[in-house]
């Protein structure tokens, strides 16, 4: 075909045009980014996150031991009739919730890394912090790390049973999962530990059984000696309230909706809490914790705002905060 014939052909030129100019030069991932952009963003993200690792951790230890000592003192004070029960009840609820925050740092070895001089402190903080909620540190750590490894996996994430369609259903589920015949919460954890079958898992199961028996033994002894109301207000009710509060803010709120959200930047949400930053235990920025568990809780807010442009570029919904 001569050049003239080609130019005179109907529609000539249209079928010979170059590919559309908006077509990417290299393949894009589901996040709309090419691998070079992703790599550069990741490098930048790591450099920023590194600035927020570590820091002053002794306040966690002081809070853990201080609160535990005060809570423990409630028992003899109640028996001696020297305790303001409504105040002790409110404080016990606070200690149950706060204890999880301090133990959470210990779970990630943020108070003392293995082999460091402060490792013993890390382990001691973890051990005392979760006694009020009758949740031994050995079990708490194993299950929490499993949650990190398999976040939002319906079969492998130990916290998946907290999923609920809305806020009210989530509060209900925190209670429902603790029912004796329901495979949720601590019952679910026990089953997972039994399946794991490792020495650490067996130790966690034994410690759970011992702590539960101590808990029941304390409640029964106090109750049959005329201090049932005191036992209920110092340990039984605060434990239930604390566990529900922890489950709601640490598990449901930052991970809802869980279904199909297993990716690094999608398994945890940035959300605006109605009760604010402190009362939600910093969980509004829980995504930062999942990305970098070595960043202590009190620095996740600061780290989030430093990381926000990168997170936005990675497709995270940063609109709530």
């Amino acid at each position: 075909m001569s050049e003239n014939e080609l130019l005179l052909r109907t529609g000539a030129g249209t079928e010979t045009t170059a590919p559309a100019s908006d077509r990417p030069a290299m393949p894009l991932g589901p996040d709309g980014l090419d691998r070079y952009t992703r790599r550069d963003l990741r490098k930048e993200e790591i450099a920023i996150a590194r600035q927020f690792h570590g820091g002053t951790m002794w306040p966690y230890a002081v809070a853990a031991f201080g609160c535990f000592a005060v809570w423990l003192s409630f028992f003899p004070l109640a028996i001696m009739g020297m305790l303001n029960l409504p105040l002790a009840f409110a404080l016990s609820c606070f200690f149950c919730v706060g204890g999880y925050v301090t133990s959470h740092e210990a779970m990630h070895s943020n108070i003392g890394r293995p082999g460091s001089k402060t490792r013993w402190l890390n382990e001691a903080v973890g051990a005392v912090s979760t006694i009020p909620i009758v949740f031994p540190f050995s079990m708490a750590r194993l299950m929490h790390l499993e949650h990190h490894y398999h976040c939002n996996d319906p079969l492998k994430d130990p916290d998946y049973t907290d999923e609920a369609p809305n806020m009210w259903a989530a509060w209900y589920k925190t209670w429902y999962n603790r029912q004796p015949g329901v495979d949720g919460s601590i019952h679910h954890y026990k089953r997972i530990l039994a399946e794991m079958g490792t020495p650490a898992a067996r130790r966690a199961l034994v410690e759970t059984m011992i702590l539960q028996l101590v808990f029941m033994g304390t409640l029964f002894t106090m109750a049959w000696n005329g201090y049932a109301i005191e036992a209920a207000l110092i340990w039984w009710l605060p434990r239930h309230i604390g566990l529900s509060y922890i489950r709601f803010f640490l598990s449901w709120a930052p991970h809802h909706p869980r279904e199909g959200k297993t990716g690094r930047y999608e398994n945890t949400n940035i959300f605006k809490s109605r009760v604010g930053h402190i009362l939600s235990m910093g969980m509004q920025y829980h995504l930062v914790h999942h990305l970098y568990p070595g960043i202590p809780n009190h620095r996740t807010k600061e780290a989030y705002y430093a990381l926000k442009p990168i997170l936005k570029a990675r497709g995270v919904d940063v609109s709530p905060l």
Partner: protein
Amino acid sequence: MAAVLKQVLAWMPFFFGIGFIAPLTAQLMQLWEIPAPFGLSPIAFGLIFGGTWGLIANIRGRWL
């Protein structure tokens, strides 16, 4: 030993009803001056109430 402890834990809702709910009920009735029905003592009523509730929780697997 482990088998015995497992059995104890399996029946924990019932034990909890007897061991804790019963005296708690009795002490709350005394605190709020609520008389027990059928001329029962508060602790007798607490044992019937707590024991029954615990047993139901054990069988049904739910407290409510």
